[in-house]
């Protein structure tokens, strides 16, 4: 894209995009590490995930401030305007993804009998898929690539599929072995959180598509 006549405008936009990229990177790591902590029962790692979420929150505030400043001072138009609005919304969504990971991490010490608790092994694959969605959608954001954004949206059905099968699995586990109910219920929440992360990555993908093209992706994609 050609440069703005006012160079400082370009610097502002670049900085905004940098903040979103940093938030996305942290959110991606948080997903992976929260599940790692949960599966291995690593409470130290869980605490780190919780602590690092503050950084994501702080970045969201920075994104908000900068976006408002750009709108006030630069009066962006057309794709610049869409870019700033998208960043504002994406920042909010990434913050939420961070919260879900924090929530997963907080459940680390609520799982009992980890060694023989089979449903625990189902979650990392689901988390990996959701993490990939977040990773890919940020790549699409960086490249302003609407096609890649649509691929991310298409991936969400797989995450939903994972959720449904894990849900059924956990319910049958609880029926068969009522002593696992409390731990299994925790894992239901975890699965639900990952499912929500997939939905949020989809929302980001829609914003990336909007920022790049001016229109939302076709209904069939969503």
């Amino acid at each position, binding site marked *: *894209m*050609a*440069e*703005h*006549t*006012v160079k400082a*405008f370009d610097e502002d936009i670049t900085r905004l995009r940098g903040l979103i990229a940093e938030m996305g990177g942290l959110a991606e790591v948080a997903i992976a590490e929260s599940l790692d902590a949960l599966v291995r029962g690593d409470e130290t790692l869980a605490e780190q995930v919780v602590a690092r979420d503050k950084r994501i929150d702080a970045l969201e505030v920075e994104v908000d401030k900068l976006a408002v400043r750009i709108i006030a001072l630069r*009066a*962006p*138009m*057309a*794709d*610049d*305007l*869409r870019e700033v609005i998208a960043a504002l919304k994406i920042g909010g969504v990434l913050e939420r993804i961070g919260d879900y990971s924090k929530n997963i991490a907080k459940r680390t010490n609520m799982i009992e009998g980890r060694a023989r608790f089979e449903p625990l092994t189902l979650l990392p694959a689901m988390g990996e898929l959701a993490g990939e969605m977040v990773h890919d959608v940020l790549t699409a954001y960086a490249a302003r690539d609407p096609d890649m954004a649509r691929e991310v949206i298409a991936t969400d059905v797989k995450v939903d599929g994972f959720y449904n099968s894990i849900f059924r699995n956990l319910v049958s586990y609880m029926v068969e072995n009522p002593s696992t109910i409390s731990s299994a219920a925790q894992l239901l929440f975890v699965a639900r959180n990952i499912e929500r992360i997939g939905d949020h990555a989809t929302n980001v993908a829609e914003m990336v598509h909007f920022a790049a093209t*001016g*229109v939302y992706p076709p209904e069939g994609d969503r």
Partner: protein
Amino acid sequence: MTVIHPDMADEGAKIRARDVCVYYGEKRAIDHVSIDISPDYVTAFIGPSGCGKSTFLRCFNRMNDTIGAAKVTGLIELDGEDIHGSRMDVVQLRARVGMVFQKPNPFPKSIYENIAYGPKIHGLAEKKADLDVIVERSLTRAGLWDEVKDRLEDSGTALSGGQQQRLCIARAIAVDPEVILMDEPASALDPIATAKIEELIDELSGRYAIVIVTHSMQQAARVSQRTAFFHLGKMVEYGPTSEIFTNPIEERTKDYITGRYG
């Protein structure tokens, strides 16, 4: 080639221009521009200096006739009537298509006379009482009545710049025009006077077809519902203002409105 946004068909045209070219001597300032100006909306012409937007605006009431070296070709119709046709009286045309300029230019006469002059020479009022009505109505519509009603005999030139511009708009309204052309009507005014002019344009839209040339894209975005982008004498893109400013089709339009132009 002009990109015209699709969802503007069937709006009807107060002014219809087809293949209009304007030459200043050898130089072609406007290059085959065709446009339909809606009767119901404010239409803004934007574009960099020298793109021809003011020249094109001045075609609509044949102001270019006053420039010796200027030659206009192509068809311009007002309500389906050729404005260059032999049956068109140019004085009458300019009453129907009023104009407001960048610098307020009140007559060096009283506020009252500034408004009353047009209706008088066009025979719109016979008695003083009729004139009084027109003066009050025009000043009220221009949002100036309350500020000047107690000093109608003061000179128009004694008003502030913003008031003078509203006086000029009231003067244009007084002869009951169908179209009002505005060439940078607020560029010599402070932000508050500008806001009053913009509010006034909003009030007047619907009653008159309004075409405004402006350098301020923010202003175009604020006051217009239709925007045409001009560049190097050509109309590059014409569409609903909200579309032009959020999702323009042409790369040149985008570069201009996002501040990337040359």
